[in-house]
């Protein structure tokens, strides 16, 4: 890597992990003083493109398995491990204007329904859930990322949408959470890996070890993530 600082560890992380990354880094610097972690937050695909183009990354933590697989295929990263998982819930605005009670309500045509786009993980999983539940929903928007979907539900522009558990943790009481049967789908996973071209593979592995450690996992759990072993 070309990082100006010899002690700097460059972590490329999915933007949806923005909040929890702050805490992870804080905890890690506590345990390993002297290490300076620089975090680059962007969409998983952007990160992938940056790494392909030679970006100075040491560790990469993505929000989906598919993108990581592409990095693996190109030998851009070493064997990935799973750092965490995330489940999905049905979210409705705090005042629930549509009177949504269950997944079945998503079939109602009088409601404004939002899903993630089928090309992004949360959208693909949401469609799997609907298929499995036998609900035929016609979404009014296919949001390219889950945060903009959440924002629209919070602001009341949408009557309901399928989002991650972690989103409810950060949205607080602005959203009502309706649980979805976990047997209907595979939860989304967050793979983490050492970047092949990085110039601090050892330090990179140390950081990954920390994320997978009890301390790291508890930080993730506090933000609503499931432990990685749940799906491993």
């Amino acid at each position: 890597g070309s990082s100006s600082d010899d002690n700097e560890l460059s972590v490329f992380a999915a933007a949806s992990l923005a909040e929890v990354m702050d805490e992870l880094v804080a905890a890690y610097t506590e345990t390993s003083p002297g290490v300076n972690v620089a975090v680059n937050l962007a969409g998983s695909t952007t990160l992938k493109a940056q790494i392909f183009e030679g970006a100075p990354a040491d560790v990469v933590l993505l929000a989906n398995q598919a993108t990581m697989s592409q990095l693996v295929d190109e030998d851009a990263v070493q064997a990935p491990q799973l750092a965490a998982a995330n489940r999905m819930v049905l979210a409705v605005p705090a005042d629930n204007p549509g009177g949504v009670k269950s997944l079945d309500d998503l079939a109602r045509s009088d409601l404004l329904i939002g899903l993630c786009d089928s090309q992004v993980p949360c959208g693909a999983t949401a469609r799997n859930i609907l298929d499995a539940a036998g609900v035929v929903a016609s979404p009014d928007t296919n949001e390219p990322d889950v945060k903009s979907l959440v924002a629209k539900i919070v602001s009341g522009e949408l009557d309901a949408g399928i989002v991650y558990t972690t989103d409810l943790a950060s949205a607080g009481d602005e959203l009502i959470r309706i649980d979805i049967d976990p047997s209907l789908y595979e939860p989304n996973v967050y793979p983490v890996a050492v970047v092949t071209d990085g110039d601090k593979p050892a330090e990179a592995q140390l950081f990954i070890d920390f994320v997978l450690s009890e301390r790291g996992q508890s930080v993730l759990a506090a933000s609503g993530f499931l432990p990685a072993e749940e799906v491993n």
Partner: protein
Amino acid sequence: MAELGGPKGPAPKGLIALAVLGAAVILLPIVGLLARTPWSRLGELLGKPIVGDALRLSLITSFAAAGISLCLGLPLAWILSRTRFWGRSLLRAFVTLPMVLPPVVGGAALLFALGRRGVVGEPIYDLTGFALPFSVWGVILANTFVAMPFLVLTIEAALNNTDHRQEAAAATLGASRLAVFNRVTVPMIRPSILAGLVLAWARALGEFGATITFAGNLSGRTQTLPLAVFVSLEADRDAAIAISLILVVISVAVLLILRNRWWSTQ
């Protein structure tokens, strides 16, 4: 025929050098894009139905937004340039804001104002049952919001450049301010009006953040080309590049149609 400007002499080397550098900053990345374009898969990638839908929608909404920007922005520019009122500088400063707001925030702002629960949108929705978001009108509004400031500023500057004698002459010939505007002012600044229109149109065509935030992303209804690009980026980068290429082709085509003769008063 011999008209205007005889032998000009070579353009100054310094200017050429800087201009070449400037062109390079813009052209190099485009060359990069073309170099990485998956030419062999192009047909397959562009054949998807969502591409056609998005293309149609992009054309409609970008031209509509440019048209609305012109209808509303030209008078706004004129008012800013030709009348004196309290708060004029402030108005001009605020009109510029959509340019600096991150488009996503711009979209959020639109929602706050005109969404189903918005300051203005809520009463409208309660009365008429009509909501702008998630409709093609929402896309056009979002595009107009981000595009109009470019047109307003370009035209206002051009208005400030013009000398006022011809307008004064028109007034003494009995032309009302409106007639002066239509028959003297507008023809005088035609190149800048066109430039403002192109800027607004291009900005609208490339608009992404405000649209997705305000109008959502539904193929065939609100998914424009940039949204299709963005969504594709997550899954298939090649498709994203291929779709971007459509944007490139459209805008080059439009600008070539305008040609040199539209760009000058000559």
